């Protein structure tokens, strides 16, 4: 199977993976959350797929041996403009870097630990793995490596700050995963490819164990406290005492609202995108109404009704 096939399969699976999250669940609140997560995931997966297509289009024939990509025609690479490099490689790290990183905690909040393991311990490393694969391209461009490193660093800082205000174990683990992935990006940007590979493997094992143990955490604590006959010693609350209180509060609110990233994406990306098509829909309605001379949409009578033949129950 070609590498592009693998990428496309991965892309398609991740495109539709939100469905797997909620397929057997029926809670509207959870569904709302999942739908929100779905939009972000789709958005980022879209960039992944676009990047794959662009990469295949620009680079042409590629082969992969071992971990890294080996190009067939080195000469071609030198003529690729810098912006093509950016476009080609942007896809591999934007999925888990800010501002698109909040899909991961949302994906892990609802489902069972097994799904959380898939997302939090395995799926998160795909992006880093892809970065490793195309590391020769990174080596061609200092600017690109700087961008990758900066995004990785900022993601790590954002995730570790946000992690400290989470009140549930899965979200905390999700942000902890993000922190590690950000650091892995940084390692790749610095050229430490084998360190990054070892980091990926180690992190996957550790996070799998933590996620599997997460549901029984409280029970484990209770057993330990019963055994030792007292409360467990409180560890640090994560707040730095040297920060001014005003700044501390601001950081706390920023972390509590997860960096306002979700709201920003909904307001500035998804909202305008959908509003364009709503406008077009209104134009179509006006056109068909005018052409037909009557109200052309029977479907208006349906909208908003939750039909059920047993409503009387």
């Amino acid at each position, binding site marked *: 199977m070609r590498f592009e096939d693998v990428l*496309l399969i991965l892309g*398609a699976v991740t495109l539709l993976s939100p469905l797997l999250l909620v397929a057997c669940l029926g809670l509207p609140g959870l569904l709302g959350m999942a739908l929100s997560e779905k939009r972000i995931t789709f958005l980022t997966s879209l960039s992944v797929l676009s990047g794959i297509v662009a990469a295949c289009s620009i680079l042409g024939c590629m082969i992969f041996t071992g971990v890294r990509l080996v190009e067939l025609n080195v000469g071609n690479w030198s003529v690729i403009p810098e912006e093509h490099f950016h476009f080609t490689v942007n896809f591999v790290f934007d999925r888990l870097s800010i501002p698109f990183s909040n899909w991961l905690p949302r994906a892990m909040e609802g489902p069972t630990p097994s799904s959380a393991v898939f997302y939090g311990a395995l799926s998160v490393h795909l992006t880093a793995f892809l970065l490793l694969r195309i590391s020769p391209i990174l080596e061609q461009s200092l600017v690109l490596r700087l961008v990758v490193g900066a995004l990785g660093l900022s993601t790590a800082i954002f995730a570790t700050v946000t992690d400290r205000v989470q009140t549930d174990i899965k979200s905390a683990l999700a942000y902890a995963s993000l922190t590690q992935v950000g650091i892995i990006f940084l390692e790749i940007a610095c050229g430490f490819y084998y360190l990054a590979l070892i980091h990926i493997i180690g992190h996957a094992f550790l996070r799998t164990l933590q996620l599997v143990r997460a549901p029984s955490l409280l029970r484990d604590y209770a057993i330990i406290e019963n055994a030792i006959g007292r409360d467990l010693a409180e560890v640090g609350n994560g707040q730095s005492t040297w920060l001014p209180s005003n700044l501390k509060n601001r950081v706390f609110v920023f972390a509590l609202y997860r960096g306002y990233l979700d709201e920003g994406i909904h307001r500035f990306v998804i909202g305008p995108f959908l509003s364009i098509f709503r406008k077009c829909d209104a134009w179509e309605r006006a056109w*068909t109404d005018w052409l037909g001379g009557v109200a*052309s949409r029977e*479907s208006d009578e349906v*909208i908003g009704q939750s039909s059920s033949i047993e409503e009387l129950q």
Partner: protein
Amino acid sequence: MSELHFPWLEFAIFLPLLGTLVTSITKSSPHCQTIAIVFAGLSLSASVGACLDLGLIHQFQAVDRYDLGKMITGRSFFVIDELSGPLLPLAAFMVLLIIATTQSTKTKRFSYSSTLLSAAILLATLSCKHSWGIVFFLAAGVLPPLMELKRRGKPTFVFASHMVAFVSLLVLGMMLVDFYGQSSKLSFWVVLPLLIAVLIRCGIAPVHCWMTDLFEHASLGGALLFVCPMIGEYATIRLILPIAPDWALRWLGILSLITTIYAAGMSLIQLESRRFFCYLFLSHTSLVLVGLESLTPLGLAGGLCVWLSSSLSLVGLGLTFRAIEARDGRLSLDVFHGLYERVPHLAAMFLVMALASVGFPGTFGFVGTEILIDGAIQRFPHIGVAVVIALALNGIGVVKVYLRIFTGRRVTTGISLKGHWSEYIGLVALSLLIIGGGYSRSPGLNQDTMQLAKFSVRCVQSLDWRWTISTMKIQKMPTIRKYTKPPIINGLMLKHSATSQRKTPKSRKALPLIRWNRKTRRIINQAQQQNQKTRNKTKSLAIFKSGCEDFENGVTLAVLWPVCESTPGSHRDNAMASLW
């Protein structure tokens, strides 16, 4: 022309016509649906027989053995070839599914006679290769839905006005083409009416509103039968691709790309299931057009695969919507319905069809979608990514609709909403086809197709001046076999540039695929003379067509097509579709 072993085509077409008569007589009978199923099933059997027979006789095209038209008028009206071969059973299968999955409670509202009439017209359209015959059947095909709208007392003007424009422009375009001749370079004004007619029938924006109107007002079964066989694409291949200049196909492709994005985006904001389905369908039908107009081997192969897979998966999705509507009425998409526990089988079917329609790995459409993406990127390097975006948006749409319809709340019920056996059989058969098709990669494609297509592209790219030779039986050509394994692409003719590099063909050795006879020599001499006149290689050489058939060794050389409108590397060089 070769003959089939049996008059399959006439049976496939006239059996539904006979069924129309019988069902119109027995309209009030409780067995009307059974009668319709029998006739549709027989028609499907005949269509499958024709397709298999064509494979058995190893010919590019064939006519019926006892051709009624030939006996009466001396001319064969119905022909099956490698393109229409798989499309005939597909269309007949759709008709059978639509009739079989109609609930008995809807019998009074759903006209079986009209459906069978539509089926007969549809199969006749697909079996006809004569341009005016296609025009006639395309025009006749708009009547059943129009009659249905009238019968249901719905507004018809939107649909009727678009269809009148479609038929008028089609007739005008064909008249212009006949007047100016097909072998010369056609001007903008000659091609324009045909182009607009095809745009209307395919539902390309901004002339797509008839389709949403049809789904709003017609029965879902009737609307599905009218749009799902993608007969507009068939008209494009038969009528447009052979004559349209490169620029026209390019603009048609760009318009299709825009439509596929537009329809995918519109499907996201729809709040009612039928309108959602309509836009999803429009997005897919535009995708098929993108592939067909890409004029690259990859794009054409992808377009054909997506055509077959989208038709199957979308008709399945439409029938699932129809089955849900039959139980719960038309569905609003701005609330959660939670229907999973009441109709789990429909939820499963919906999921299979929806995933197949967006090319989910392991389903029917995956390979075709991937090839289509490759082809679109080749043809439109800067905007071909739009195909990926459209597919992603469609993925968002189908997942969202699944969640809205089948999840969200728990509804306890004392009334069973389980389906009829015919629903089960129909949808399970579709699911098996979709998953089985995905398992066997894709219909009409074998594992060597990609390599072969890439080989073709490399051949074309390596040649400066070349001949494009199309044949349906490449496996019998040893010169090709040493480069690649035998290709089997139904309905798709592969082309191979047989000339040596940067040289005009001068010897038989240079054109090993051509049987040298008086006719081919004359054509090649004309092309060489034309080529000498246009040494700058920027102007059109010519389009030469030759019906060189029945070559020795079973080789059928359908068309001999020198490069036209050619700068080196022109996309016209990759043209194959016009050879149908």
